[in-house]
């Protein structure tokens, strides 16, 4: 039963992923991407990692996708369809990516994973929180702190880039 659900989700994800990267309408593309993300959070839920599933939903459905849409609206080209890539490029890309996928899958299947038959391994928020705030072995407080620096830096960067400064010299535009 679970497996069937998984396969359905997987099918949906793959389909929407393909549509997302091939649709020529950028808005639709974003929506397809959203479906993939939701599907992914579904997988997380199925893997008994509901916290991550929730995060995935919140961050992507609630954050990133909105960010994209906002950006596109800023650019005011919602309806415009994207240029179609050249056929040759598509073919080469398809060949290379399928080769890559094939190679990766071959590698995966050739490896004999030692699966642990632990069915009821539910990761709770508590577990996550404990791990994140632990500063010993397998504790993640340091990365957790650093990521704040990262977000700060990204924020500063994004702001400084996006905020419109006044150019003193219009000639510089030409460079």
């Amino acid at each position: 039963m679970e497996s069937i659900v998984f396969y359905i989700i997987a099918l949906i994800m793959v389909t929407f992923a393909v549509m997302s990267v091939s649709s020529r309408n950028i808005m639709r593309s974003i929506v397809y991407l959203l479906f993939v993300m939701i599907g992914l959070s579904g997988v997380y839920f199925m893997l008994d990692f509901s916290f991550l599933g929730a995060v995935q939903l919140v961050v992507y459905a609630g954050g990133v996708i909105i960010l994209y849409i906002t950006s596109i609206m800023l650019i005011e080209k919602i309806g415009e369809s994207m240029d179609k890539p050249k056929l040759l490029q598509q073919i080469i890309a398809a060949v290379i990516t399928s080769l890559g996928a094939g190679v990766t899958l071959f590698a995966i299947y050739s490896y004999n994973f030692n699966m642990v038959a632990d069915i009821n391994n539910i990761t709770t928020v508590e577990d996550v929180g404990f791990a994140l705030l632990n500063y010993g072995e397998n504790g993640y407080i340091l990365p957790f702190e650093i990521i704040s620096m990262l977000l700060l830096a990204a924020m500063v960067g994004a702001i400084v880039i996006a905020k419109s400064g006044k150019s003193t010299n219009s000639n510089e535009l030409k460079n």
Partner: protein
Amino acid sequence: MILGVSIYEILTLSTIIFFIGVYGFVTRKNLIGMLMAVELILNSTALNFVAINKYLYPDLIEGGIFSLFIIAIAAAETALALAIIINLYRLVMSLNTDNLETMKN
């Protein structure tokens, strides 16, 4: 872990999504489109971590935490990238990558 589904299936899924992302990255002629392909790539790896964690090494939640960080960083990255894209758009009035070839060879 999902009953009846082995690690291989999940890894297959993530691999496929990953390479779909790569395909998108390679074929998209629109900057935002490429960025979305990147999202696919990053998310597929996040799925990898979680699946491996759950199926193979469930004692610790290293993979799960890792996925969390991936999501956070991907978001930051997206924000920054979009900022740059917007700035670029202001200069070029286009998102088409064909307009990004002033520097080559």
